[in-house]
């Protein structure tokens, strides 16, 4: 179903509904596999080799190798599954979030200390389009 949903107009946000889940099934199941230490070891020593065991698309594999989390999200990854990748890399949710927003971890940390990203101007896609246009 490609019907629109009431949350489709929220900017910068991917809601993990069945449209995303169906795309991302194998990507997300690969992520789950990293809960086992032996799989983490194999993945760490050879990203590509480990990924080739999974029925993922080439785009998905490359996004994982690049640690491009926004790309992974757009290809059906869910953040709680993707967390297994950066956890395995020894990195934090805060670091991963900063890479998705396009600012340095330090800038992101400062924004959070100042109370986080305000909802104002961040509720609707048209608000983002305007500020970019």
């Amino acid at each position: 179903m490609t019907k629109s949903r009431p949350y489709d107009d929220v900017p910068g946000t991917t809601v993990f509904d069945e449209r995303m889940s169906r795309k991302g099934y194998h990507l997300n199941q690969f992520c789950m596999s990293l809960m086992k230490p032996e799989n983490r070891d194999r993945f760490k020593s050879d990203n590509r080799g480990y990924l080739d065991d999974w029925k993922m698309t080439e785009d998905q594999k490359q996004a994982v190798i690049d640690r491009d989390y926004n790309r992974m999200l757009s290809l059906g990854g869910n953040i709680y599954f993707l967390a297994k990748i950066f956890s395995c890399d020894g990195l934090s949710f805060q670091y991963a979030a900063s890479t998705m927003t396009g600012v340095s971890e330090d800038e992101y940390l400062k924004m959070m200390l100042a109370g986080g990203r305000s909802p104002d101007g961040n509720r609707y896609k048209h608000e983002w389009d305007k500020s970019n246009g």
Partner: protein
Amino acid sequence: MPAVGRAIDTGQTQNDYWKPMFDGFDFSKKWEESEKPDVVFLVYNDHATAFSLDFIPTFAIGVAEDYAVADEGFGPRPVPPVEGHADLAWHIAGSVIQQDFDLTVVNKMDLDHGLTVPLSLMFGQPERWPCKVIPFAVNVVQYPVPSGRRCYNLGKAIRKAIDSFDQDLNVQIWGTGGMSHQLQGPRAGLINQPWDQAFLNDIGDNVDRLVGIPPEEYIREAGSEGIELVMWLIMRGALDDQVTEVHRHYHVPASNTAIGHIILKNGK
């Protein structure tokens, strides 16, 4: 959230960053010491740990005698295993299914930070948790997630079940989950303090408003992971219509998240 777990597990709760947050739990820890619950019915969400995409239960109740602490990708947290209360859990499962809630009954699952971090916040770092726990997992990962109203009504069914149990136990209901937060995408880091404060203001005496909030409002106003707040409505449903607020605390930030907690007790 994992970062809070790590702060506890690596002894950083008293540094400049974390102290204001952890201080908010001082009262609550003492309160738990005096309340001495026998069982905590702990409503939480599994974060792609016990449940993969192969099997996605809307509501899952743990009926086991014990549970292991999960390895979420960086080894298990150094906390004690969790003891269940199989008698009460099975009683609730049976009663709630007969009240038309279509639970999945679980005999074996590993528990992730969604369950163990709240335990650490309220009980500190004991050798053994001071009470038994019934884990109750709510799907807030795969859409559609259950509505706020469904969650609230489920809470009422759970309360009825607990009231009809034939042992005299001190049972607490915890609803967990961050307040506003978004962990993903270019909008990550969203925090909505006025919205969160209104939620805390209304959960005691004006829950009808909260019960009607649709999922898209949580996403838009409280960030994509703010949807976790529907779990608070299960807790609220399990309490009396009239409640008294015992304690409240709200802090920003804990890593990416607004963290709030409120203690309500039955009756005015």
